[in-house]
């Protein structure tokens, strides 16, 4: 909200005017009511203990994060471009492998990647769409430049909070949300459903789309419910599906019903015990055969995880140029690949200034933030990097942009990131909003909910 140099950004004038008329106590009261409401409505993630289900609310900050029309249009174009490159890349590595053969991306980086699925070779997908739902994590640096921190091309979560946060704001702050030219986010389900119908096998005239969840014990179960409801499609688990004659059916009270598209929130490894992890209880036997036969579409496709690997990420700007012949609209955060000698040398020499990340993990696991780490942690990190350099990348600590945030009885700056959601069928559409995560601890740069992060409603202005 307050752009560079501590001057509030001009596009937030009218919103700041309105907020100025509210007392802190009013904000606090409404914030408490909102928390209560999130809990009551069950907009929660669930932690299971032996005998109880504990519902936790993701902390919600009532002061919105406001993006101007110009900033948004830049982000939107950048995200569409990035997803186009991701899809072209995935198609390429599962077909001719041009980008590997000519050495633009090191072949072993892809082919030896745990998330590379050789089973996918030669399979043609409708519209070449591998990544139907993409969440791209952006940060804004000290110069005001939006940079990509991470691509989430497997099963990005969090979009339910985007929509529910907005509904909450509209109820709690009718005096703030009205007539500011706020772009809507509540049609996400319609767009998603339409995109999923577009990637259906061409034989399906009126495609039956389902959402496949690991079940009530999954911490994101609320989101699965939310998405099934918003799309108006059945919510199923692996045990509700059956494959006969390479075709997928859903068990209903009236017998079996054909399934054409599965939005699966189950990892590749658990999809089909016949093809992948034989221990999987969450999957459907024979699903992959049906998929290879072209009788069912999966979103996202199998094998997209290789594209959001953190080492592959480092090559994304080059991929944009390679496949699209365009300059990347959204730059990466500078990334040093420890697999390369210069990258390794630089990383080890500047360990205390850098953020070191393992390449195959998500959710902030295994990340060491140099300036915040103890000497012992740094030494341990050094040992791990030296032992297996290819498994690590390092990046400079980005001075994330801040947003005003209600902390107890005052409004203070807190660091934020942004995850826009890009939905792709035949073409890409970007939800005008996104998940703003905020590090509620003073000075903290870690926005993950497991480490004291909360969310904000993200306002994109017309």
């Amino acid at each position: 909200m307050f752009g560079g140099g501590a001057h509030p950004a001009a596009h937030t004038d009218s919103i700041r005017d309105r907020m100025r008329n509210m007392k802190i106590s009013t904000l606090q009261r409404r914030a408490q009511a909102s928390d209560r409401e999130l809990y009551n409505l069950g907009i929660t993630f669930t932690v299971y203990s032996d005998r109880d289900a504990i519902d936790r609310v993701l902390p919600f900050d009532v002061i919105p994060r406001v993006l101007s029309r110009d900033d948004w249009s830049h982000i939107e174009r950048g995200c569409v471009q990035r997803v186009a490159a991701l899809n072209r890349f995935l198609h390429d590595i599962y077909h001719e492998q041009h980008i590997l053969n000519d050495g633009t991306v090191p072949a072993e980086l892809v082919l030896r990647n745990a998330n590379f699925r050789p089973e996918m070779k030669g399979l043609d997908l409708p519209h070449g769409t591998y990544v139907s739902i993409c969440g791209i994590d952006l940060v804004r640096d000290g110069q005001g430049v939006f940079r990509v921190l991470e691509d989430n091309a497997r099963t990005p979560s969090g979009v339910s909070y985007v929509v529910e946060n907005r509904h909450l704001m509209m109820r709690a702050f009718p005096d703030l949300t009205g007539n500011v030219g706020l772009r809507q986010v509540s049609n996400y389900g319609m767009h998603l459903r339409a995109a999923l119908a577009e990637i259906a096998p061409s034989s399906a005239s009126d495609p039956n789309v389902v959402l496949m969840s690991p079940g009530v014990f999954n911490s994101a179960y609320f989101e699965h419910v939310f998405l099934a409801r918003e799309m108006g499609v059945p919510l199923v688990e692996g045990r509700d599906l059956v494959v006969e004659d390479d075709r997928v059916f859903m068990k209903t009270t009236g017998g079996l019903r054909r399934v054409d598209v599965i939005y699966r929130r189950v990892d590749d490894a658990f999809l089909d015990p016949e093809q992948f992890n034989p221990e999987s209880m969450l999957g459907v036997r024979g699903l992959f055969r049906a998929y290879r036969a072209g009788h069912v579409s999966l979103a996202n496709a199998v094998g997209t995880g290789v594209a959001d690997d953190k080492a592959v990420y480092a090559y994304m700007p080059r991929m944009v140029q390679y496949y699209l012949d365009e300059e990347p609209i959204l730059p990466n955060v500078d990334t040093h690949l420890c697999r390369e000698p210069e990258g390794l040398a630089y990383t080890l020499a500047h360990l205390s200034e850098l953020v070191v990340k393992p390449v195959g993990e998500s959710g902030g696991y295994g990340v060491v933030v140099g300036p915040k780490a103890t000497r012992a942690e740094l030494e341990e990190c050094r040992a791990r990097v030296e032992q297996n350099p290819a498994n690590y990348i390092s990046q400079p600590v980005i001075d994330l942009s801040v947003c005003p945030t209600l902390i107890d009885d005052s409004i203070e700056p807190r660091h934020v990131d942004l995850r826009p959601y890009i939905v792709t069928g035949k073409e890409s559409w970007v939800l005008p909003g996104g998940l703003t995560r905020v590090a509620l601890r003073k000075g903290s740069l870690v926005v993950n909910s497991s480490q004291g992060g909360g969310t904000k409603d993200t306002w994109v202005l017309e």
Partner: protein
Amino acid sequence: MGRYMERAENLARIVDVNETFARDEQGANDWLPILKLHRDEEAFFERYKKATSANVVRFYIIDEENPNSIIYSVRAARENARSIRHVISLETWAQLNVFYNWVASLTARNLRLSELSRLCGRIKEGVQLHSGIVTGTLYRDQVWSFYRLGVFTELADQITRLVDIKYHALLPSWQDVGSPVDIAQWNALLRSVSAYHGYRRVFPARMTPTTVAGFILLSPRFPRSLSHCVSNIEATLDELLTNEDLQDVSFPRDSLETLKELTSRSPESVITAGLHEYLDEAQVALLDFGAQVAATFFHAD
């Protein structure tokens, strides 16, 4: 979801009515019949020494280990609702969620005798609010039909169980029909199922085992009667089977026919032939019916 909520309401009714009505005539309050009613004596005495009112109330309201307690039922209803959350209305989930959180927050302090009746009242209201929200918001497809089948099967099961235990309790004094103790028992029974005023309108002056049991089990106008439940089960099932997705489904009707036959009898013939045997037959048929629904529609073994 519907079944578990009805169970919670029923438990609240029973605790409430036992506290309020069963105590005065006998001076002290006897809580054993409640344990008998649910065949819970064994489970209860495993963990409690005496069937004091405090212990029994605790056992049925907040004891999480007891599968027949209110907290257990409401939690099961909520977990059930969680798994079908995408097809129930948002309001249904939100109310159930709030209700569960409230029930889960109850402690022994909330169960003091002076508070008990009000507490049971709130629990009943919570369930009634739930069924009102479901009725007012649930989309009328198969989900609605199965919800109703669950609710009416549960109600039918409860009412037969309830009459059965009262019958046992009254057996020793069968000759003294009309004694004050006896009247108090029947009185409590009628009130526990909200049948008292309906009964009084039909039988302003009489209270005999035949008329009371007959009313509770067989009155087509009393909404918790076996008769009313069975005709709703039949209507719901028939409507369900007209659904075009279910054209290929064949449902065995034998247990339903048994239930219909049972509810077509007269109160006198029921009592003469033996109330206990009658209720036993009804419970077996209800169990069969539930199993047939599960096997036919949900492919359960």
